[in-house]
Every structure is written in structure tokens, then in C-alpha cells.
């Protein structure tokens, strides 16, 4: 019952306790900020926090649902997207164009690959400036093929499936493979179909150029648990100027 027994704990269990206290929510604001600063630098502590969050999530059942006021969502939209709380946004039209793109991709996959690779045209119109395209494919049966298209102007990397693998219980995670001994850098988790777009973080944009390698791996639902690739690579390809 004395505090001296706590002081004699080695760092591992002590950090696990700190992670538990953080997740319980009993720390002061200053201590919470200190833990959060460490979380960004220390994967072991971040893993301990994630573990406690998972362990204690059974207590989430105590939060009995309470419907929020009806106008709340409109307020959220207006805070996020400005006052025009409609659905006619560029994000929605992008999504619509992706749906079109998907149906086309399924209809004429092989022709489309060739078309994209040699003409440098993108579905829905011509592409601005010089694009970068990559075809990502796997060797094994059941792997998938994706077309990636990077627009340097917007920093947006768009992906669409050309053939789809059987990855229903998993998430598809997209990686930038820097080469050498550097670990792959996650660019994000793709929707189950493999179709979608990723906004490449500004600090990574200079690294996207001809010859860089993209890879897609199968990860647990929701993506890699530790930020490093854990599952098999199901598609890989190099970027080139078409």
C-alpha cells in the first residue's frame, strides 16, 4: 500500500500502468499531454495504449445510446465544409467519377491498362500536367491488379482495381516502398474493393517520382496494427511516366 513499491517497478510494467491510467482517463491534462507527446515517438507505449483501449472496450457497453439533437449533423457539415451544407461537393463528384471508373475498369480491364499506360489519359477527361501511373500486380493466384495514378498537382494518388482478389476478411493497405533498408511507408488503407484515392501527405510528395515502388498488402481489418507491414504483398508495381 505504499508508493515505494510502485517506484521499484521496472520501466515496462510502469509504462503499461501509465498507458492504463491514460486510457482510464484519470490523468491530469498536463499528464495526458505528456503521454500523447510520448505516443508519437514511442511505438511500445502506443501499443500499450491500444491494448488497454481494446481490453477496456467492453466497458463501452455502459454508454447507453442517446440520440443527439436533430440539427447537430448540419452543424458538423457546416463547421467542416463551410456554410453550404449540401451534397454537391467535389468529394462526392470525385466519388461518383470513381464509381464510373470502377464499372469501366471491370468492363475492359486489359484494354484500359494499355490505354492508361500509353496514352496517359484518365477516365473522365485529360489529366493535368505530367502524371505518374503504376500497375500493381501480384504473382500468386488470387492476387489482385490495381492501377495507380498520381497527380502531382493535387498530391492525390488514385487507385482502381483491374482484377480483384479474395480479400474480404482483410484490409488492403497501400505502401510506398522507399528501397534500400528503409521500411515501407503506409499511404493508407483502401476500401475492400481496392478502389479509392489517397491524399499523399505533403512531406512524402517529393519522394513520388518515376521508378518508385508501390505495394499493396493484406492486413488485418482496418490496417496494419503497428504501422509496419504485417501481411503478404498482394500487388506491387513501379511508377513510370506514360
Amino acid at each position, binding site marked *: 500500500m505504499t508508493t515505494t513499491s510502485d517506484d521499484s517497478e521496472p520501466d515496462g510494467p510502469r509504462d503499461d500502468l501509465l498507458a492504463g491510467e491514460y486510457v482510464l482517463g484519470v490523468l491530469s491534462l498536463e499528464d495526458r499531454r505528456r503521454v500523447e507527446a510520448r505516443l508519437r515517438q514511442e511505438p511500445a507505449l502506443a501499443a500499450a495504449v491500444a491494448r488497454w483501449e481494446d481490453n477496456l472496450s467492453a466497458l463501452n457497453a455502459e454508454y447507453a445510446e*442517446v440520440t443527439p439533437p436533430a440539427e447537430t449533423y448540419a452543424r458538423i457539415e457546416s463547421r*467542416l465544409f463551410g456554410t453550404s451544407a449540401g451534397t454537391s461537393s467535389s468529394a462526392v463528384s470525385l466519388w461518383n467519377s470513381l464509381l464510373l471508373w470502377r464499372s469501366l475498369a471491370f468492363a475492359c480491364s486489359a484494354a484500359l491498362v494499355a490505354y492508361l499506360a500509353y496514352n496517359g489519359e484518365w477516365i473522365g477527361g485529360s489529366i493535368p500536367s505530367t502524371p505518374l501511373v503504376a500497375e500493381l500486380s501480384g504473382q500468386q493466384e488470387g492476387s489482385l491488379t490495381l492501377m495507380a495514378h498520381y497527380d502531382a498537382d493535387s498530391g492525390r494518388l488514385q487507385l482502381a482495381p483491374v482484377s480483384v482478389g479474395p480479400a474480404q476478411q482483410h484490409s488492403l493497405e497501400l505502401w510506398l516502398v522507399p528501397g534500400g533498408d528503409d521500411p515501407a511507408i503506409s499511404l493508407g488503407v483502401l476500401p475492400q474493393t481496392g478502389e479509392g484515392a489517397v491524399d499523399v501527405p505533403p512531406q512524402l510528395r517529393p519522394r513520388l517520382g518515376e521508378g518508385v515502388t508501390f505495394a499493396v498488402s493484406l492486413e488485418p481489418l482496418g490496417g496494419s496494427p503497428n504501422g509496419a507491414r504485417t501481411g503478404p504483398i498482394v500487388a506491387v508495381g513501379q511508377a513510370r511516366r506514360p
Partner: protein
Amino acid sequence: MSTEADIASMIQRVALRDRAALAQLYPAVSAKLFSVCLRILRNRPDAEDALQEVFIKIWQRADRFAAAGTSPVGWLVAVARNHAIDRLRSRRPASESLDEAHAIADIGRSPEAETVLKGEGRRVDRCMQELEPDRAGAVRSAYVEGLSYQELADRHSVPLNTMRTWLRRSLMKLRECLDR
């Protein structure tokens, strides 16, 4: 009704800046997340504002869901709890009606919600039963209501250091039990 997989896919689409996915995610989980804000902040206007901020954070941070490795509802609740606790800790001690918080707890959960949320795992419940009842109660109210060490000490009428020791020992016992 949305399954865990549906919610995971909505979050992934939100990470790709899909506004339609956010509009789908909101009705699926807002009642749960509003409940989190209410229980912790114990004040309706504050909880309403916090809920808006929670969804703004979800929009901004959905890409981190990939790295979290937890269940999608678990991740969303963690975002809401962290936000509500930060907000609670940063406001000056105010007069709070505990009655309001307890009244909220009596509102029932819909059967649909039960189905979505039962993926939350029950193992910790068994481990909680191995703790002494007052300590298990302290762990539970710390987590659910976001009480500080001081508030827990006051509620259980024990000195602050005793409460610290209770909770730390309880966490160690829980870890040991969960690892078995």
C-alpha cells in the same frame, strides 16, 4: 442496421475524404458517441458541442484508424472519450449535476445497437469480477465517467494516494488476468 464491418468500411471511406461516407457514419454511431460525451461532461450543451468536435476529429483523423488495430466502434468511442476527457480536464471545476448523469444511464439501448456493440469483448468483465467490488467500481466509473483521481477519492471517501494505489493495483491485476 450497420455491422462492425460496415462501420470499418465507412471510416475507411471517410479517410479518403468521402463526404457521403461521413453522412452514413453519423446516424450509425452518433447516439453512442453522444452518450459518451454526456456521461463524461455531464452537461447537455457541452456534450452537443463536444459531439460536433468529435466528428470533426473523426473526419480529420480517420486515416489513423488503420494504425489503431482496434474495433471500429472501439476506435470511435476512444476518439470521443479522449476528446470529452480533455475538455473536462481543461475546464475549471464547475458545479455539476451528478443526478443528470445518472438519469442518462437509465435510458435503454436499442436491440440493433446491442448487435453492433457486442463485438466489444467480454473477457474484461470476468477479470473485473476478480477485483474487490469497490475497486472494480472505481475502475468502472473512472473509465465510463472520466472521473479524476481526486473525484474518485472523494466519491469513495479515501485519501488521494490510496485511490492512486487502488487503481494502479487494479490495473496490474487486470493485466495479469487478461494475459492468462
